[in-house]
């Protein structure tokens, strides 16, 4: 899962990046409006945290332009402007949720999870895939009740596949959604991680669709 944080306050930006990173997201960051707009317009994010009061370009304009050019990723507005008129403006501009500062990081993470889940079509906090169960709240994966120990890269890969179970996910898509923009994008690394994952979970859960990508089998949503 890739997240973008657009926040001009350096400390808050750092806290958000840390918290999201700890929760298993690959995080890109922008400190002003123009940079934030550019990233959101070019990179495929699974969720965006957007401040309203930004230098160079305000959050509402950024959001409107994204939506105009059909960028549909979930956007959570994070702002000190907590009047309902501000919230309405934000929601009308195309935001998916709105969180007023000061906020609790747990609250933000919960909302981020909810948006990611909703975008991939899951209603519950837990996603099941055959014997596998992903608890999005605690960022843990269990296999038939047993917790599986995963590195953060492995977790991200598995979580992304489970969020999009039932369809084929290409290697390119995985690369785009799993690593932040500074990561060296070599699609071979994906195969390496898939290999490692298959050693930790039942082998047939992740199916390789030749020439297309990967697919999770026995997704609960398919039944």
């Amino acid at each position, binding site marked *: 899962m890739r997240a973008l944080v657009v926040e001009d*306050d350096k*400390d*808050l930006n750092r*806290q958000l990046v840390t*918290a999201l990173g700890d929760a298993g997201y690959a995080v890109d960051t922008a400190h002003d409006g123009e940079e934030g707009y550019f990233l959101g317009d070019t990179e495929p994010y699974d969720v965006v945290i957007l401040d309203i*009061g930004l230098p160079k370009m305000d959050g509402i304009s950024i959001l409107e332009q994204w939506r105009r050019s059909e960028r549909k990723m979930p956007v959570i507005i994070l702002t*000190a*402007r*907590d*009047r*309902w*008129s501000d*919230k*309405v403006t*934000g*929601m*009308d501009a195309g935001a*998916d*949720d*709105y969180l*007023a*500062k*000061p*906020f*609790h*990081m747990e609250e933000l993470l919960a909302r981020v999870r*909810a948006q990611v889940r*909703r975008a991939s079509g899951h*209603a519950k906090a837990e996603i099941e895939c055959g014997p596998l169960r992903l608890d999005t709240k605690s960022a843990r994966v269990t296999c038939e009740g047993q917790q599986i120990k995963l590195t953060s890269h492995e977790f991200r890969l598995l979580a992304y596949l489970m969020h999009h179970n039932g369809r084929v996910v290409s290697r390119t898509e995985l690369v785009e959604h799993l690593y932040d923009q500074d990561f060296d994008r070599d699609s071979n690394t994906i195969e390496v991680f898939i290999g490692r994952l298959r050693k930790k979970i039942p082998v047939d859960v992740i199916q390789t669709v030749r020439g297309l990508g990967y697919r999770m089998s026995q997704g609960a949503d398919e039944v």
Partner: protein
Amino acid sequence: MRFNSLAFRLFATSAAWTLLVLPLAGYLIYSLYRDDVQLSFDAQLKKLLTALAIDSMNTTGDAPVPPQNLYEPLFEVTNSGWYWQVRPIDGAPGRTLVSPSLASAILPSPYAKKFPTDNTGTRWMNVPGPTGETIRILEVIDTPGHEPDKTKYSVIVAGPLNWLEATVAKFRNRLTTALSLFGLGLMAVTLFQVRFGLLPLRRIEKGLTSIRSGEASKLEGQLPAEIEPLQNELNALIQSNNEIVDRARTQVGNLAHALKTPLAVITNEAREDKSPFAVKVAEQAQIMRDQVGHYLDRARMAASAGAIGRVTPFEATADPLVRALERINRDKGIAIYLQVAAGAKFQGEKQDLEEMLGNLLDNACKWGRKRVQLKAVIVAPDGKVRAKRLVVTVEDDGPGLSAEQRAKIGKRGMRLDETKPGSGLGLSIVSDLATSYRGSMSLDASPLGGLLVRLELPAV
């Protein structure tokens, strides 16, 4: 017309003046007329007396002779009030002559009653006549042939005083009627004058009312020169009032922005750390966060409390809120039903209505299961409430609150200083906002199963 009003003052002074002057003028005219009538009556009596004296005394004999012509036919009519009489004085023997009108009666002599003479040698006396009515008697003492050594005769002419009085009374009645009508006319003119003269003030009053109700943003129209400066000053005041409110809002917003981001940083930083110091910081930051929110809300409220004449259409305000909240809660699949009386308008700031509705709907969406209902109706003024009211209800089908819980929250919402921030329901700010508009908030159980919040607000 109110007692303490310009119109009353003008009208009262004018009326007082009229009430004082008209009777005085009436009395003066009446006196002049009465004197005039009296004088001409006296002059006529005097003329008759002179004629009688000349006619009866112009004789060479020792006795008076009956007058030939006295020019007054009423001397011939019995008891007409007009009499003459020639009679020797001091009981001396001699001939007595009387007018036919006197029949057998004898007129008393002013001489005998020792009335003084005037400078022409005439005596005047008012006495009851033969029929009991008051008559005025004139008398000269003369001798036949005007010779001093002959017997002295009292020559008397009398006329009816009640005739005089009747004439004067008739005049007085007419005068009173005329002056009363004139007085009423004056009052009517004054009333018209006052109304017409004060018409521009009425226009100011109307203008101010429409400013308060938000129909106009300033005092319109061409007003008379005397109150034009007032109009200009008022307009300037209204404008500066609006500017102050807007400025206060902006400053409060800026303060909010400036404080909240650092607070968010501190809170998050402190919660990462588990040392006692960090715990303390987190705890204090939480308090600061609550306090900042609490007082910023109230600062905004104070700013809007001074605003004059803003009107907010209800539906246009509620619609975007409902849209936003449905979007925020779309995973929950909650439906917000909106039922608003056509043309419902809130008399107050748009932002304040948004805050109230936003908080209430947000709560309802949070607690409700599938259905939230927002209704707004206009309640016409009745005996208890003078102004039109906008009654808003927000209800949900959630678990609701028990009667005790409702009573507790309702009570806390009543007074601002006891309302601690962070009640969790956001109802305290709603209640405070409603109160600041002289409205009210009350809680009840909804037929849908959850909480029903009822707001009464001023409408236009």
